[in-house]
C-alpha cells in the first residue's frame, strides 16, 4: 500500500510517456545520488580494502561483527543516545515554556515570535562558533566569569563539559523551531474548553496539566521524533566546530564517527558498515514518523 493511498484522484489524464518524462528528473537524480551510493555503502560494508586501496577482501558481515564488538563504536551509540535525549529535552522544555507564556498574551506575542524565530535561521555550524566563542578557554566571556566564580571551565579537556556545550549549542536553534509548533498548537486549543475549566475554578497550572498538555500530545510526540532525528543527523556542524568529537571521543556521535572513520581514518569498510547501520536507524525513525502522521491525518 502506498503511504497515504487512501486518497487518489478520480480524474486523471491519459498517456504514459509524458508522466514518465515528468518524473524522470527526480528518479534519475535519486538513482545517481541516492540509490547508487546507498547500494555502494551496503556493498563496501562487506569488504575490507587493503591499505593501498588496490583490492578488497570479502569479509561478509565481518565489519559489522567487528563494529558491534568494538568498544569505541558501542561507546558512540551511548554518546548518541545521551546527546539526543539531552538535546531534545533542552530544546523542547524551554520552547514549551515560552510558548505557554506567549499564548497568554493577547497583544505583543507576534513581536516576540518574530524575535524568537531568529536562531532557527542560524546554521548549526554557525551556532557552534557562537557558543565556542562564549566558552572559549582563552577569550570566552562565560568561561571567564565562571573562572571568577572559581569554576575552571575547560571543555577541551573535560568530556562532560564538552558534551554540555555541544548539547546547548545544538538545542539553542531548535528552541525556535519547537516554539513555533507549540505556539501554533496552543493557539488551536479551543478557548471555550479552557474558559469552561476556568469557570469550574481550575487554576492555570491545573488547566495546563489536565487539559492543555494532553491536547498538545500529538504535537509533542511529533516534535520528539523530529528533534531526535535532528540530534542524530543535523548536528554534525556543531560538533565539528566545537569539539571535533573530542576529548577522547566523548562527543563522537554516530554520524560524526562515519565521517571521522571514513574520511579522516580512511577505514572505508567500517565507515560503510556504519552507514548501513544508520540507514536502518533512519528507516525505523521514518516508519515511526509515518505511522504517526497517518494516524494524525485521520483525526
Amino acid at each position, binding site marked *: 500500500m*502506498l503511504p497515504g493511498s487512501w486518497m487518489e484522484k478520480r480524474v486523471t489524464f491519459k498517456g504514459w510517456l509524458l508522466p514518465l518524462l515528468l518524473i524522470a528528473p527526480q528518479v534519475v537524480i535519486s538513482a545517481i545520488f541516492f540509490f547508487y551510493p546507498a547500494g555502494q555503502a551496503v556493498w563496501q560494508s562487506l569488504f575490507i580494502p587493503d591499505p593501498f586501496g588496490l583490492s578488497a577482501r570479502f569479509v561478509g558481515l565481518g565489519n559489522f561483527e567487528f563494529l558491534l564488538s568494538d568498544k569505541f563504536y558501542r561507546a558512540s551509540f551511548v554518546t548518541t543516545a545521551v546527546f539526543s535525549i539531552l538535546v531534545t529535552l533542552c530544546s523542547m522544555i524551554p520552547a514549551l515554556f515560552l510558548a505557554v507564556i506567549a499564548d497568554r498574551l493577547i497583544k505583543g506575542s507576534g513581536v516576540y515570535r518574530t524575535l524568537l524565530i531568529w536562531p532557527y535561521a542560524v546554521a548549526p555550524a554557525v551556532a557552534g562558533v557562537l557558543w565556542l566563542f562564549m566558552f572559549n578557554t582563552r577569550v570566552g566571556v562565560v568561561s571567564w566569569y565562571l573562572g571568577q566564580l572559581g569554576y575552571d571551565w575547560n571543555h577541551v579537556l573535560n568530556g562532560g563539559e564538552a558534551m554540555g556545550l555541544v548539547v546547548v549549542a545544538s538545542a539553542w536553534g531548535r528552541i525556535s523551531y519547537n516554539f513555533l509548533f507549540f505556539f501554533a498548537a496552543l493557539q488551536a486549543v479551543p478557548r471555550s474548553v479552557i474558559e469552561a475549566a476556568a469557570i469550574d475554578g481550575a487554576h492555570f497550572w491545573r488547566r495546563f496539566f489536565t487539559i492543555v498538555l494532553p491536547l498538545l500530545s500529538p504535537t509533542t510526540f511529533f516534535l520528539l521524533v523530529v528533534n531526535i532525528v535532528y540530534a542524530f543527523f543535523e548536528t554534525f556542524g556543531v560538533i565539528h566546530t566545537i569539539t571535533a568529537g573530542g576529548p577522547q571521543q566523548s562527543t563522537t556521535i554516530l554520524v560524526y564517527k562515519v565521517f571521522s572513520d571514513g574520511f579522516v581514518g580512511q577505514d572505508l569498510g567500517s565507515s560503510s558498515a556504519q552507514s548501513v547501520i544508520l540507514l536502518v536507524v533512519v528507516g525505523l525513525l521514518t516508519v515511526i514518523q509515518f505511522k504517526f502522521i497517518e494516524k494524525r491525518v485521520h483525526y
Partner: protein
Amino acid sequence: MAREVHGMVEKRGAGLWLTHLFMILGVLVIFFPIWLAFVASTVTQPEIVRPPMPIWPGDQFWVNYKAALFSGVNVPVGTMLFNSLVMAIGIAVGKIIISLLSAFAIVYFRFPGRNIFFWMIFLTLMLPVEVRIVPTFEVVAGFGMLNSYSGLILPLIASATATFLFRQFFLTIPDELAEAARVDGARPMRFFVDIVLPMSRTNVAALFVILFIYGWNQYLWPLLITTDPEMNTIVMGIKQMFPSGDDVAEWPVIMATSILAMIPPVIVVVSMQRLFIRGLVDSEK
C-alpha cells in the same frame, strides 16, 4: 461574564507585566549569543583577547566587516557569500521544479511503474546526505564535480519532502477543474501551467523559504567537496578561518563573518514569516 472569564484565562494587570517580563527575559537569553557575536565584530582583537570582552559595541564595525568581506582569511567572505547564495537558490529552485513535475505525474496519471517510482521517491525521504557521505562523495568525484556548483547542489536535491508536500496539495485540488480541462480538450501540460501552478503559488513560496535555509545552512557536504577555497560556502568557511596551530584566531573578523553568514537566512525567514510558519507547520504535518 465572558469578559471575566477572559480575565481568568488571559493575564491582566500585574500578572500581565510579569508575563511580559518572562517573555523579554526569554528573548534576551536566546539572543545573547548573537548579541555577543555582534559586539565582537565591532571591537579590536586586543579588546577580545583580554577578557572579559566589552558588552557594548565598539567603533570598529566598518574596519572588521571590510576586512572580512574583501580579504577574509583564506578567501574574501564576499566570494563565500556568493557561493552560498548560488547553492541555496540552486537547491531551493531545483528541488521545487523536480518535485512539482514528479508530484503532478504521480497524482494526475496512471502509468506503468507508477507505484515503483513512488516508492523509490518515498525511500529517499528523510535520509540525510550525512549517512551516505563516503559513496556519494565517490560518485561526485567520479563525475568530476568536486569544487563545482553542480556538485554542491545536485546530491542535495535528491530527497522527497517537497514531492510529498506537493502531492498532498494536488490531491486537494477539486477534480472538477481537471474534468473541465479534459472536456475542453486541454493538454495535461496546459492544465499544469494554467491551473495547477497558479494554485500552488503560496506552497511554492513557503517551500522556497524552508529549502533556502536548508541549502544555506549545509555544512558537511561543502566541507567535503570544496577543497578549493574559492568554492567554499560561508557556513563551512568560518571554521576554516580558525588557525590550525597555536596562533590566536582573528576573532573580530571571524565574528563579523558569523554575522554575515546569518543575515541572508534571517532576512528570508523574518520577512516571509507568515509563509514560512505555514510552510513549516504544513510540510511537517
